[in-house]
């Protein structure tokens, strides 16, 4: 009988004979490496270009991102890659997350703690007092893939952090029971992923899904509203196989398949107990669907994932593949009201007034150690400077007011900050406003909302004055966004921007439409590179060749519509197609929203 090592050597020889290494292995690696770097450079170039366009006619002075000899900050520009949620940081695309809460109108974004851990908020306690989350503790130097996950809870203001699991390898996805006394979570403590339940203080963990000796993984638990059952996903990963929706009684009895679908992810039980919403589909073509528990029928809702039911049961909080999240009114499905276009949603507050979400992107990797940010020299009164923080993550704008004081902001439009490349704001000296060159949102020099679609004012950055003469300062932590209700002064000077949103193309048009891949390849070559995103809407193609994108189209009336240019399909009859449409920004003339008003 051969020993274990002999057997493994045999297996290794067999496996590598079946799947040998390619002979040009280092060339393949350098291609892989260069591809990732190309993405990073594209993102960097996009930022630079967008920033350059945004400052037309202004007195903006851009601090270059070099390592030497410049009076300001900067470091590398944010590399952003496609990923699970498109919320990406500089070193760990898509995974270096922080937790936030936000009112459902998009205001009062609050960060829950500032650290370098990868924290993933997952549920809000029923009494509204605590948040359950999991934290990835990476290997030295960090990494996209973390070595250990553990389950934690904290108060909703970010304080009183308590670790509930210890050294279990991978433990995450914690969900409070409806009465708040228990937490269901996923753990690999038994060697394979299982759904466990523990007391809300972390005591008495019990493996709930060890009901057979299979190698299947069990994850994504969700409680029934009466707390009697837990639905979860059972999947064979790796090497891949069916991932079905299961349900089990909360005491571990009566496990059975609930939905024999090819794959379900992130189920969420409706407050009335009658339905379960879940994600399904071939990433990135994932969709949210709803299973009626009595009828067994599955209803398609929208192209999104990670659904979370509102406390009133009327809406779903969903995350968008390209990044960001929004709310779907179940009375009007297939439309999502976007709340934010970065990050991904985790859940609702019990009163339904706030959402819990995770984000990385420009906010990841902030350095808060003493002296981490360099000392910058203030611009002359009335002027502004821009750059990137030393961590390389946050573009900033600093304006010196006429009275000599300073204000600093994240130079990112709060409105539809895209998953691929954020819309950078420009400083318009003639009107003394921060302007969004894509959608026309405008903010006064105090960062207050002035006009346009932005849901909030700007996100201020703390400013520490280092010396008075000359005036030097150091940037600090981002603050909560200024509420939109705090309205700024109407500008009187000339409007700077000269761009507009025009063409639209889509994979949904039978004749002449572009595929998403073609859209993706087209967008970077557009002069306003990077400003592409997907929207839910109705595309109307009329026999006369007119093409409209409408927020809704009822009775021949196009609501909030916009004409579409680009490939023009022919159709003998009016064609009405609902779905996800890909929008590209190209140069044009953006009408001053204030003048238009």
């Amino acid at each position: 009988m051969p020993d274990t090592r002999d057997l493994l050597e045999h297996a290794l020889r067999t496996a590598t004979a079946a799947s040998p290494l390619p002979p040009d292995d280092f060339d393949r690696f350098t291609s892989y490496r260069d591809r990732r770097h190309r993405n990073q450079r594209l993102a960097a170039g996009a930022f630079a270009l967008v920033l350059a366009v945004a400052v037309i006619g202004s007195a903006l002075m851009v601090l270059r991102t070099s390592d030497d000899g410049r009076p300001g900050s900067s470091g590398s520009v944010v590399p952003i890659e496609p990923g699970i949620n498109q919320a990406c940081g500089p070193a760990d695309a898509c995974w270096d997350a922080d937790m936030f809460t936000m009112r459902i109108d998009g205001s009062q974004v609050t960060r829950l703690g500032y650290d370098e851990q990868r924290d993933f908020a997952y549920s809000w306690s029923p009494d509204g007092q605590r948040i359950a989350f999991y934290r990835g503790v990476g290997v030295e130097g960090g990494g996209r893939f973390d070595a250990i996950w553990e389950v934690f809870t904290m108060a909703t203001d970010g304080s009183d952090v308590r670790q509930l699991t210890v050294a279990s390898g991978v433990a995450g996805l914690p969900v409070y029971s409806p009465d708040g006394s228990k937490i269901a979570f996923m753990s690999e403590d038994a060697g394979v992923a299982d759904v466990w339940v523990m007391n809300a203080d972390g005591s008495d963990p019990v493996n709930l899904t060890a009901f057979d000796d299979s190698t299947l993984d069990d994850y994504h638990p969700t409680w029934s509203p009466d707390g009697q059952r837990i639905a979860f996903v059972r999947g064979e990963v790796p090497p891949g196989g069916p991932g079905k929706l299961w349900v089990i009684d909360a005491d571990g009895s009566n496990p059975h398949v609930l939905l024999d679908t090819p794959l379900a992810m992130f189920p969420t039980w409706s407050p009335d107990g009658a339905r379960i919403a879940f994600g399904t589909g071939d990433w990135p073509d994932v969709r949210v669907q709803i299973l009626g528990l009595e009828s067994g029928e599955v209803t398609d809702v929208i192209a999104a994932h990670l659904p979370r039911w509102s406390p009133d049961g009327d809406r779903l909080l969903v995350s968008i593949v390209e990044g960001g999240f929004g709310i779907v009114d179940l009375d009007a499905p297939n439309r999502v009201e976007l709340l934010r276009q970065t990050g991904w949603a985790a859940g609702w507050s019990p009163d339904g007034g706030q959402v819990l979400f995770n984000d990385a992107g420009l906010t990841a990797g902030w350095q808060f150690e003493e002296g981490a940010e360099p000392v910058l020299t203030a611009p002359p009164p009335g002027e502004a400077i821009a750059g990137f923080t030393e961590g390389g993550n946050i573009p900033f704008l600093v304006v010196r007011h006429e009275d000599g004081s300073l204000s600093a902001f994240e130079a990112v439009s709060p409105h539809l900050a895209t998953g691929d490349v954020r819309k950078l704001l420009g400083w318009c000296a003639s009107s003394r406003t921060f302007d969004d060159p894509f959608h026309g949102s405008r903010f006064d020099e105090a960062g207050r909302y002035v006009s346009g679609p932005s849901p909030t004012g700007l996100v201020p950055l703390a400013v520490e004055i280092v010396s008075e003469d000359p005036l030097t300062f150091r940037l600090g932590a981002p603050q909560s966004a200024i509420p939109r209700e705090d309205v700024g002064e109407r500008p009187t000077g000339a409007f700077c921007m000269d761009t507009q949103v025009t063409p639209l193309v889509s994979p949904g048009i039978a004749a002449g439409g572009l595929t998403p891949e073609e859209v993706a390849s087209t967008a970077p070559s557009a002069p306003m590179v990077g400003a592409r995103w997907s929207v839910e809407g109705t595309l109307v193609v009329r026999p006369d060749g007119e093409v409209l994108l409408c927020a809704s189209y009822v009775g021949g009336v196009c609501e909030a519509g916009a004409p579409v240019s680009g490939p023009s399909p022919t159709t003998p009859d009016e064609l009405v197609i609902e779905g996800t449409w890909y929008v590209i920004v190209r140069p044009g003339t953006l009408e001053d929203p204030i003048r238009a008003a």
Partner: protein
Amino acid sequence: MRLERRLGALEASPDFESFFRAERPRLYGSMLLITGSTHEADEVVQEAFFKVWERWDRVGAMEDPTGYLFRTALNAHRSAYRRAVRAAKRTLSPPASPDPLAAVAVRDEVLRALAAMTPRQRTAVVLTELHGYDTDEAARAMGIRPGTVRVLVSKGRATLRARTEPNDA
């Protein structure tokens, strides 16, 4: 560190490429056994080397850069969230080409036995039995307790024995 500067510095250094050429076959083979998938092994290995390359100025100076590499690769393989997404891809979209490893694994009793283990049992057995890691080293690489490693190895060995003994063949 600025990317361009790092790129330039590392292009000029032969050390990383030597490290890559020396370690890739073993890492790739190990990940084949651990993941049971050619595509997964290839992806994880590429990612692990990329991560090591990003930090090569520090990793190259480590006493055991190979351990760091394996740890990084295992971490890449571990993310349950990521695996769930990957499973979604696999489940609903047939692979463009069949995995040659899968065809062999059906016929080979040792590979079948490895597939019958849990992922952590497979990892623990490969690290300790194939690569000679001691329990503490394997525990560090896997991010678990040494005692857990011992349990996993014991169970993995038992599975291997049970599935490869002549009576069971």
